[in-house]
């Protein structure tokens, strides 16, 4: 984004994704509040300094019978009364769409300080009902209605398509799950940090790792998660003043260096039909990634020190590996076998644990990915820190590989 004004990330906060807010008898208003107040506290930005707020959320109407989530931001602090706010929805990419809106407004010069919150409360309903709600991220009537757990089945088909074009071993998918769970154990906010997991369990085939849709088993799935994450974005004008008052250099504050955003056909079968003959199974996802590089002035994946990707299922991370160009198309298994995607590997993916390990509060995930990238490039990720990281990239996907957003976040 060299020709356009810079947008800085001052920091943020996420709630502990292991919490069950229904058991705590909490409304998502509490989750919004904890996320936003946590972000203000950790950045030492005053509520009165926030000029606009964007909320990413997928389906509060279904899970909580409540819409109009932008208005809930105003409830957090008396200083927010009258603030311009809004809510953004693009299924699992809702958080990233909220971020894009906030970035564009700052670049347009409308505002200098923006708070972006991603939020989802999902444990309000039984698993099967929640699975049905998630089906609305597909073409519900044609792909999900009357189908038990439609999304594992759709992402099972992504695996099947890889298998057809290039060959795919389930053992490589189990390895992806194992890495995500192992990383999550290092993340004090990850949902699965205390769960029992090892490589042989990930590869097991009994009742404790049942099939849920096609080749997708329990360990291949991301989690049903309650959580919010909030980040504070700023113009260079505000970031300069902020750096001065914090006694740090402007260069030490990360900024959005690039972004990509494309939306494919809604139905999975249509996406796959369109990509027949292409080297990439989901070409618009590849374009999203390369757009972000181009805007960031980065040639390829070697220009980023790590990736927070959308592993809603192991097959989506398998897809991401070759779409990021870590391997040639169809050869993602090589990166898995070589250990490149592990925390200490040459292309670490999801040091946080990702959606499988850290958890996947649907509308929150895009914001959580940016927050984790912020932590990585500022050296504040604690035990899941990628040594020396300066540039990180996200990939957030809504639906069955439909709405795709990627950000490159880095210092200097």
């Amino acid at each position: 984004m060299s020709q356009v004004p810079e947008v800085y990330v001052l920091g943020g906060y996420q709630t502990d994704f292991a919490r069950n807010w229904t058991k705590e008898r909490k409304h998502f208003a509490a989750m919004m509040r904890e996320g936003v107040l946590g972000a203000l506290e950790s950045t030492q930005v005053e509520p009165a300094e926030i000029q606009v707020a964007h909320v990413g959320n997928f389906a509060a109407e279904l899970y909580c019978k409540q819409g109009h989530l932008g208005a809930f931001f105003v409830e957090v602090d008396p200083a927010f009364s009258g603030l311009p706010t809004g809510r953004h929805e693009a299924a699992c990419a809702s958080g990233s769409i909220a971020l894009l809106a906030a970035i564009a407004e700052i670049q347009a010069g409308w505002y200098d300080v923006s708070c972006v919150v991603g939020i989802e409360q999902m444990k309000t309903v039984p698993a099967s009902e929640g699975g049905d709600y998630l089906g609305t991220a597909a073409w519900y009537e044609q792909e999900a209605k009357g189908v038990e757990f439609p999304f594992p089945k759709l992402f099972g088909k992504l695996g099947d398509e890889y298998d057809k074009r290039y060959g795919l071993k389930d053992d490589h998918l189990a390895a992806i799950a194992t890495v995500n769970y192992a990383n999550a154990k290092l993340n004090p906010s990850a949902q699965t940090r205390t769960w029992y997991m090892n490589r042989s369990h990930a590869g097991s085939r009994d009742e404790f790792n049942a099939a849920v849709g096609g080749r997708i088993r329990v360990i291949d799935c991301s989690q049903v998660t309650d959580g919010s994450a909030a980040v504070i974005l700023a113009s260079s004008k505000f970031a300069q003043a902020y750096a001065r008052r914090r006694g740090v250099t402007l260069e030490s504050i990360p900024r959005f260096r690039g972004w990509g955003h494309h939306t494919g056909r809604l139905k999975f079968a249509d996406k796959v039909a369109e990509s027949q003959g292409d080297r990439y199974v989901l070409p618009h996802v590849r374009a999203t990634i390369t757009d972000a590089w181009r805007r960031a002035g980065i040639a390829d994946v070697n220009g980023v020190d790590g990736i927070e990707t959308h592993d809603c299922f192991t097959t989506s991370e398998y897809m991401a590996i070759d779409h990021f160009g870590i391997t040639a198309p169809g050869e993602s298994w090589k990166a898995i076998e070589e250990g490149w995607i592990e925390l200490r590997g040459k292309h670490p993916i999801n040091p946080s644990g990702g959606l499988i390990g850290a958890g996947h509060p649907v509308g929150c995930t895009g914001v959580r990915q940016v927050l984790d990238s912020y932590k990585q490039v500022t050296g504040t990720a604690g035990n899941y820190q990628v040594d020396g990281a300066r540039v990180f990239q996200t990939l957030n996907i809504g639906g069955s590989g439909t709405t795709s957003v990627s950000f490159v976040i880095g210092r200097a």
Partner: protein
Amino acid sequence: MMAVGLRNTAEMKNILGTRRIEHVVVLGANGAMGYGSGALFTSAVPRVTFLARTKQKAEDGLKAAIQAVRSSTVANRVDTGDYETAFDRAVSQADLVFEALAEDFDVKRRALERVDRTRQKDSIVATVTSGLSIQALAKGRSESFRKHFLGLHFFNPPNVIVGTELVAGKDTDPGVCDFIEAYATRLLGRTMIRTSDTPGFAGNRVGFKVLNEAAQLAAEHGPALVDRVIGPYTGRALPPLATIDLVGWDIHRAIVDNIHENARDEAAATLKLPAYMASLIASGTLGNKSGGGFFKKAGKTQLVLDPRSGSYQPVGELKLPDLGYIDSIAALQRDGRYREAMALFVEAPGPWAALARKVVAGYVSYAFHRAGEVTKGIAGIDDIMGFGFNWAPPSVLIDTIGLVKVIAMIEEAGLPVPRLLADARSKDVSKRFYMNPHGNIGRFFVAA
């Protein structure tokens, strides 16, 4: 902050390099603590031997371990045996012997004597006990045993509750404690708390004081009212008497008797087991495991104990006083307004709010009086109450209510004000007490 964390990480790595744990033997592997901890060990250790009185019981423990963590792969790392034929061979090969036998001093002492005779000289021996003296259990053992012996107090169920107490005896090698702390933190995902070898250690000392006080209050006010008044809204996942039913009345008695007899602190009166509990335990009332305690179910009807008569009546037929103040507090908590909720708690009129404040003030006062006695500082007590009991740590209550108001609550209850709080009041009333950056204080206030 960050630099300290990194130094700790480097230190931990160095300490972890000092020895290897490749074989753990679990004694009492058919009990909940035995198989639960055994399952946990398999996540880091290549070989775990489950021992019990019979091989069948050890096998039952393995089955329970598989169910507990929901993975058949536990069996890949576990072998089983009985005490008669497998004990000596397994213990002589083990890097860590984990004793999880019944909470009975003589049973444990006899087993540890046998371990002492058999173990390889550098192996670590850990006991899981809810409060028996580590020093007393080590008495009479060899020098090598005493150097390598410590208390490792997992809370049940160990694969879910991460708060864990580490207790050294007088002769325990500090290097062994450092290693176990690093090992359990990094490889078993524990939140480790170092405690003194005092009755009930830290968590049970502070926690059962509150639980027993609730049981005492139930004699006069009845269990249903007490559990509502000292309910989740006061900073706990489960009401106190329901907790005693879950833990078991016999375990409750063992813990409070031990503390009452051996600790003799300023709150001794609240640690005396109520007479009605003693007589009901004698006639077989042990809580949920015996079919009921303070509460039980008859079909779909929830029944509650009348401590005076020992009989039960449907909860629905009770006439509780107006407790609308609790609904108002819970409504604020539901929306995440924890400070406002607790401000309402402090101001709430009537005898029941006053009673709740007395118990909460007693908890904070007692916990801060124990800082320096059962743990080095209040942080250890905060961690075990938060991550062992799932209660709002005392420091969280102070940060949420405000120091001045908490001191006023303690004074109003006629309880001693801990020096740590009095000092803070004279220096900096806005001092923040809870220091865990990942604590999510809101989680401790359940809106009910």
